[in-house]
């Protein structure tokens, strides 16, 4: 009896996985043809064909640049960041055992934001061109260390302590960001644009950073996914049946924070993908993490790239994708919260 159910679930999983993968590939192909520049669909496909198979086809150089060097990296970055945020959200909801957790709960993202804003500020004041991404990344990692230190790394990492430490650090850093913003005067717009989160102006360099790091992190996350299921019993209960829950929580904390740090450093803070997608998958399919992680990754990728298409194409002035995801995600968040508190019988 158990066997049947497990097999059925497995079949469903592969089916969903296949459908989503096809959908994702479809979205890549369609998105690449859409845009404000006057390029036909057949031209777009020709360019992709040319680049991938290294064929010699006559195409205008500026069109080739738009498709291959502007649209493609942006679409792929969006997919990877969407996947990364969704997986990080799944991880944080599991290890913090809190359905309201997301990649930004423990404040790593605010660390990245502070790093980015600081870099922009220094660049403005001293007329430098310091790169934002590495500084943002370094600051998010520093933030992680500080938070873990506050929560007490050598003890059992209790979720409430982690969340509390995250909130404290987040609000302190937010204040610091506010300070920098007010000091920046008229140049504040660059900071605000970064903070709102966007996928514009991504190049192949960013894809090269994103792809290997996020892929490896997601594979690692899936590898120990069965233990994450057991963790839902509670940290002590999991230990009682032989899961080294302390080590497990720390391992996933580092992976989740790493994914968040990479994504946020590159795209800024794109809200709610990491909160909503894991819930969506959990409610509609399964709460088993070995399925939840890959499917959330794909759904996250698809949702973020759809959202990015909307911001790119539907508005006269391009709005940051983070604004759109938060606009849609906010009401969804409230919906989950209300459902959650009414369904609780503790």
């Amino acid at each position, binding site marked *: 009896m*158990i*066997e049947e159910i497990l097999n059925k679930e497995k079949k469903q999983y592969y089916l969903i996985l296949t459908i989503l993968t096809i959908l994702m590939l479809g979205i890549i192909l369609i998105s690449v043809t859409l845009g404000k520049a006057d390029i036909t669909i057949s031209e777009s496909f020709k360019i992709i064909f040319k680049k991938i198979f290294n064929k010699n086809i006559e195409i205008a150089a500026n069109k080739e640049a738009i498709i291959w060097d502007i649209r493609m990296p942006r679409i792929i970055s969006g997919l990877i960041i969407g996947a990364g945020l969704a997986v990080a959200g799944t991880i944080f909801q599991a290890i913090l*055992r809190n359905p309201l957790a997301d990649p930004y709960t423990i404040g790593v993202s605010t660390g990245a934001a502070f790093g980015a804003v600081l870099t922009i500020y220094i660049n403005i004041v001293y007329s430098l061109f310091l790169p934002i991404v590495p500084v943002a990344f370094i600051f998010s990692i520093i933030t992680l260390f500080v938070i873990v230190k506050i929560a007490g790394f050598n003890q059992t990492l209790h979720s409430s302590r982690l969340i509390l430490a995250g909130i404290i650090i987040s609000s302190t850093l937010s204040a610091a960001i506010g300070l920098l913003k007010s000091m920046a005067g008229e140049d504040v717009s660059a900071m605000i644009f970064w903070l709102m989160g966007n996928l514009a102006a991504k190049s192949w360099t960013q894809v090269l950073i994103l792809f290997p790091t996020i892929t490896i992190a997601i594979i690692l996350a899936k590898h*120990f996914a*069965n233990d994450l*299921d*057991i963790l*839902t*019993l*509670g940290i*002590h*209960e999991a*230990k*009682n*049946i*032989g*899961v*080294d829950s302390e080590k497990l929580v720390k391992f996933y904390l580092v992976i989740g924070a790493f994914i968040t740090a990479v994504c946020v450093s590159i795209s800024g803070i794109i809200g709610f993908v990491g909160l909503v997608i894991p819930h969506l998958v959990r409610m509609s399919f399964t*709460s088993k993490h070995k399925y939840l992680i890959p499917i959330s990754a794909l759904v996250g990728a698809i949702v973020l790239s759809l959202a990015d298409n909307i911001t790119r194409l539907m508005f006269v002035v391009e709005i940051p994708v983070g604004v759109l995801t938060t606009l849609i995600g906010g009401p969804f968040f409230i919906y989950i919260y209300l459902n959650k508190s009414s*369904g609780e*019988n*503790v």
Partner: protein
Amino acid sequence: MLIKASNLTIAYDKKEVVHKININVQKGEIITIVGPNGSGKTTVLKALTRIIKYKKGEILLEGKEIRKIKDKKIAKKIAILPQTRNTPEDFNVETLVRYGRFPHTNWQGKLSKEDKDIIDWAIKKTGMSHFRKNKLTELSGGERQRAWIAMALAQKTEIIVLDEPTTFLDLSHQLEVLELVKNLNKSENVTILMVLHDLNQAIRYSTRIYVMEKGKVIAKGNPEEIISSELLKDVFRVNSDFYEDKRHECNHFIPYKIEREIHDRRNIK
């Protein structure tokens, strides 16, 4: 000797709550730790099950320091039923019981035929067959308790540790759980270590009793010899009458009055 705790001292931060106690558990025994609230019973169990770290002394599991054994290895030897636990919302009984096999499976968590048989056996043994597919949140307190016991059974361990397994349960469910424990001890030769509040139940079901007060073991041994009206007066501040429970051939007592002296002192406070 299955478990041997010697000179065990446990502290929460700086505050010492258990002072240099010795507890031994032998194969096939039903050991019960009793004592008033705050005497340190649960703390001792938590140390035995590595939820809190002890300060001094040692706990040996089959002669090996428990802190040096891997979690998975311990989980093959000791199953634990904690006192309070959260109830995962989307778990059904079978999923929970399946997790009991975790220590015996490899990292992929694939279940063998044997694992599945054990799961079926654990569910049947605890009378949960009808509730197999029910969610934990749909069950009553007694049923939920049995579901967790089924998970502990699925671990197929030599020892089961239960922390106040009858608290929050009504009379019939209390009896049910304790009879189940006794039956496991008899038919499967599972060693039991538990904390109970009801002393009469402790007398009836235990082979040996440890009485704790203020972080110390103040009496231990055969329940008939240990639980006396003097001890109840000293430790639990009650006067009581003892009767013979002919059916179970053991003592049974009824407390009738709170010790005056203590009572007064508390009033003055």
